[in-house]
């Protein structure tokens, strides 16, 4: 097991790396020329891009179903709207401001707990897995922007 002094040194190193990584999205956020549009605004843009709404009596059932139902409740209409609205890179960078710090927090805590020999470190690792997958998706979205 790692000694306490070594654990402290490791923690300081991780904290310094994390603060640097956390600063990047903050700088990006500060450099943004305008605030991101609200959910309602994005929804209206998305609806406008979809064309005129169905006429009364014309395929009303289909319109109602698209409002209420998705194949899975895990990805409901609000999530679908969020994913399909706006620019891919813009949306992923906004999500990165939440997901990246969260992944870093979980990984740092996991390292600290593991260095102290605490069994809770495993839980942090498991809950970090889906977030790392989310981070990978965000990275791919950003790469697609650079590749064009």
């Amino acid at each position, binding site marked *: 097991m790692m000694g306490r002094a070594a654990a402290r040194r490791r923690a300081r190193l991780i904290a310094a790396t994390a603060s640097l990584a956390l600063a990047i999205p903050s700088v990006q956020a500060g450099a943004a020329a305008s605030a*991101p549009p*609200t*959910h309602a605004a994005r929804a209206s843009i998305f609806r406008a891009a979809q064309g005129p709404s169905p006429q009364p009596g014309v395929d*009303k*059932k289909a319109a*109602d*179903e698209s*409002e*209420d*139902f*998705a*194949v*899975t*409740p*895990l*990805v*409901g*209409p*609000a*999530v*679908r709207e*969020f*994913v*399909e609205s706006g620019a*891919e890179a813009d949306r*992923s960078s*906004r*999500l990165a*401001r*939440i*997901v990246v*710090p*969260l992944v870093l*927090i*979980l990984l740092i*805590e996991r390292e600290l*707990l593991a260095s102290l020999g*605490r*069994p*809770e470190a*495993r*839980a*942090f690792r*498991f*809950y970090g*897995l*889906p*977030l790392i*997958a*989310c981070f990978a*998706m*965000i990275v*791919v*979205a950003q790469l*697609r922007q650079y590749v064009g």
Partner: protein
Amino acid sequence: MRDGYPVEDRGRALGPREWAARVALGTFTAVVVTAETTALLVSMEVSVACYAGLLVALLNLPLIVRSLTAQERAVVMGLALVPALKIAAVALPQVFIPARYWEALPALMALALVFALRIFPVPSLTAARTTWIRLQEREQLAIAAAGPVMAGTAAAWYSAVNSGIGMPGLVASSTSALATAALSGVALEIVFRGVIQASLIPVLGRAFGVAVSSFLYAALFIGSGSSFLFVLALVTGAVWGTVAATARTVTGVAVSHALFAMFWVVLY
């Protein structure tokens, strides 16, 4: 405990510890409802931020409150699946993946997470482990067969309360849509009835455990913006929760939910 599913502890007077647990659970539920409502009224990012804060708070709770029992730690770790699932449901889907596939991603991630927790058991989570490979029993098959019946009943109910919708009819559905519906049904049952409810019952009692897990399950549907779906999820969640608590396994309800979701897709 029989077959991995915990048995409730009846007839116990509530002490300060139990009340504290209920207040904490109420706070958790309030945050989930707030995050779901925020997704509708404010923005999806704020909702994800709420869930991120909730996830960090839940994972750190056993580190801060050192006096938690193994069962209480299991409750906390089980409840942490809810924000993890919701964050994955928003951040995993991307437009460069076909919609049918990205709809299935959060369910796959939830299943992978639960199985990872089972394969590499965390000491505090072992108390919440359940059994679901018991399909040979007749009771499980009967529960599973009730899924399409419930879906048909729900569809008729929806048509009755909403005059704008006609009676549902059978429509041809793609294989990927049916598979996604079934997968998400199984994932939701394993997470909510298999882990969350199984850990809540020994701490809160059977009735309260089923009620809380059903409400949490229904709270995920607030983001859909449909009051009908919320009520439907509350009712079906209570039915499946009661059945799972009685049968002490989630096999039947997982298959039942999968058939329910598939039949619902076929009806609409």
